[in-house]
């Protein structure tokens, strides 16, 4: 296996863009990325698109060549990857394996989603397609309600509180307020976060990530060639994807995500590092409880301690384990299929010292965790500049 590096990144802002369609967002991110990596479309050996529900949101199928040809990339394999909210994390993983194995040299990965063209109840319905439609969804579950049931059980078993959940939202909004590409650049108080409109008890509006349009892109190359394209390459030191049950009621214990434990265990081993070594992370905070459980499953805090760990400020931008300095899915936005690649872009910005006001001082070893559905897919990536 060859060592692989990220040689370029590109992103659109995240938000609600009534005049933009899926392809124009994907093309903007792809073009910015190619320019950033000093790569011409003709140099790209393969194209991967992470997209969750383009056919449902936009009525368009066959999306990978639809986007790649619009970018001027002709003739090469163009593949769409769907893994719910981990679609582009999975696309990134498969692009990585293509470069590491020597099948490809230069691979472009774009993640994109256009969600705001549909009314919220329809968006809720499309998102529910990532659950078990013959069981939990048929019974009336929404994604918020699945994570609400996870939160309820976590509170019962470990004493996690309403305040712990809100501490995640307050922290991520404080970070997103400093991110010019974030959808909701708004600082919120603990009082506001605790008193949001109820969505699925115990979760309120401020526990839920946003409905967003947006795209993000990265370029991968063999590390030995990275110097040809950039003077700030970031290496993929460890990466793994893991899977688990789609239906929540099939999991023996819903207060932990086995796919996160499995993927992170393999990624740590591959990188030769442990959770204590990680200097910053982008975690999948689709709901506040998801960030708390990710903190535990990744080994940043013991089981049941993710809430107190957050409330104590460890995960703040100024803390010893900064998490979601981009604002996370909560404040930056969550165009589902774009999220996994956007996490990589945001970490690379930090690792290149290009994160502006939200720049953290320690940034040579970083981790991204991208979760699909209620934990059926997880991709963990460890990046390093050392």
């Amino acid at each position: 296996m060859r060592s692989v590096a990220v040689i370029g990144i590109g992103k659109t802002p995240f938000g609600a863009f009534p005049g933009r369609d899926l392809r124009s967002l994907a093309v903007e991110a792809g073009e910015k990325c190619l320019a950033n990596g000093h790569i011409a479309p003709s140099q790209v050996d393969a194209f991967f698109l992470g997209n969750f529900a383009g056919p449902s949101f936009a009525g368009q199928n066959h999306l990978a060549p639809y986007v790649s040809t619009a970018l001027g990339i002709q003739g090469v394999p163009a593949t769409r990857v769907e893994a719910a909210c981990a679609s582009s994390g999975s696309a990134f993983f498969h692009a990585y394996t293509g470069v590491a194995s020597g099948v490809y040299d230069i691979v472009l990965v774009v993640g994109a989603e256009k969600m705001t063209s549909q009314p919220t109840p329809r968006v809720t319905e499309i998102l529910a397609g990532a659950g078990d439609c013959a069981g939990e969804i048929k019974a009336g579950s929404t994604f918020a309600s699945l994570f609400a049931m996870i939160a309820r059980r976590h509170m019962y078993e470990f004493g996690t509180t309403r305040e712990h959940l809100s501490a995640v939202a307050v922290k991520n909004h404080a970070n997103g307020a400093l991110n010019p590409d974030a959808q909701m650049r708004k600082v919120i108080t603990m009082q506001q976060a605790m008193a949001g409109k109820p969505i699925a008890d115990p979760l309120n509006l401020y526990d839920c990530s946003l409905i967003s349009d947006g795209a993000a892109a990265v370029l991968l190359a063999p590390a030995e060639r990275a110097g040809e394209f950039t003077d700030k390459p970031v290496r993929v030191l460890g990466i793994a994807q893991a899977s688990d049950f789609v239906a929540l009621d099939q999991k023996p214990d819903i207060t932990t995500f086995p796919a996160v434990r499995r993927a992170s265990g393999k990624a740590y081993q591959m990188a030769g590092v442990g959770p204590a070594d990680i200097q910053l992370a982008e975690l999948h905070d689709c709901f506040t409880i998801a960030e708390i459980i990710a903190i535990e499953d990744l080994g940043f805090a013991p089981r049941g301690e993710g809430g107190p760990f957050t409330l104590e400020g460890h995960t703040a931008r100024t803390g010893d384990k900064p998490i979601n300095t981009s604002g996370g899915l909560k404040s930056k936005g969550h165009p589902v299929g774009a999220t996994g690649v956007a996490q990589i872009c945001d970490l690379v910005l930090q690792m290149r010292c290009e994160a502006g006001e939200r720049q953290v001082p320690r940034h040579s070893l970083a981790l991204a965790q991208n979760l699909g559905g209620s934990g059926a897919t997880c991709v963990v990536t460890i990046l390093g500049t050392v």
Partner: protein
Amino acid sequence: MNDPTGTIYTETVIYSATEAFAADVPYQTAIVSLDAGGRVTGRIVNVHGDRVRIDDRVVRVEIRDGVPFFRKIA
């Protein structure tokens, strides 16, 4: 044969639903650990009067369109 009984493993009350369930809000869903083994996601009847919590005992009162509905055992 008696109606299946079980214990609430986790629950939520839903206030924001898809179009198909919009008329039902707020409604309660739960994962029930069945006494006979296994878990199932179902609806709880009478959300206002009879909200269930973790560890409450429930009995299945009907199956509507494949979805089990449970009621709290007093």
